[in-house]
């Protein structure tokens, strides 16, 4: 099953149940009492997902590890490598 198929399957199940609820094919007083909430549920979920995505991406961007030490170590090693290779007969242009 491809990821697309998994999503189509999951969303079909969700909307199957959702439609059954909003078209009142399933009847229960708890459902009737919360009808407005049920109706806007997809919208709420989309908004929540959006907030989750934006905060996660921003948080991870701002806390992205800055490898300054690795960069400085590399700079040193480049000089070391050049020196050693030159002593072994390598010409740098």
């Amino acid at each position: 099953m491809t990821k697309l198929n998994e999503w189509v399957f999951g969303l079909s199940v969700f909307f199957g149940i959702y439609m059954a609820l909003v078209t009142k094919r399933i009847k229960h007083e708890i459902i009737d009492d919360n009808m407005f909430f049920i109706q806007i549920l997809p919208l709420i979920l989309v908004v929540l997902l959006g907030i989750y995505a934006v905060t996660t991406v921003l948080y991870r961007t701002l806390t992205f590890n800055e490898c300054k030490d690795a960069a400085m170590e590399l700079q040193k090693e480049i000089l070391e490598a050049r020196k050693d290779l030159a002593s072994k007969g390598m010409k740098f242009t």
Partner: protein
Amino acid sequence: MGSEKYSILLPTYNERENLPIIVWLIVKYLEESKINFEIIIIDDGSPDNTQEVAKELIKIYGEDKILLRPRAAKLGLGTAYIHGLSHATGDFIIIMDADLSHHPKFIPQFIELQKKHNYDIVSGTRYKGDGGVYGWDFKRKLISRGANFLSQFLLRPKASDLTGSFRLYKKEVLSQLIKACESKGYVFQMEMIVRARAMNFTIGEVPISFVDRLYGQSKMGATEIIQFAKNLLYFFATI
């Protein structure tokens, strides 16, 4: 270490400045850990004459350690790996960039982790643990994190760094993956790790520090982003 041999594939295109340094670093860290290895340089007829430098390195380190397997023209990264693999004599293949953004000091860690769990693949990751980057501005980091979030969300692979290309593979696993992959060029790496999940290969991860290239140009623009998005959706629909 044991008797296993590791073949390191280094695709190069205009890496005259970087090639001697990366080779020197590989030799330094792998000999320190007593690892049996060979370096396979796949140069696509670089105009800066990278091959001339490769030949000098062969003189210094010997032609059993450094193998130059060039191609006549710039044929892309995906086929460069296939070409390199066909010349590899190791039991394991390590793929890395030659531009010094992938530091060879991590290779012994890859090998150790692979041995411990007998993983099919060990992937370097910039997004976990002590992993990270250097030389990226806010915009570059944002694009990277955004792309990573989206691909994790849609594809749920078993690896946290899809677009990175610093990895160790069992040779047999790599040839199976290469056979299964359709794309060429840069997305090749991403397709391989996504297919690895679908083919039930086991994947281990080692956090790496990624120091963006100091010499030469790196490509990262609108066309790369569009390419990435197109491929992400394609893999989402087909794998």
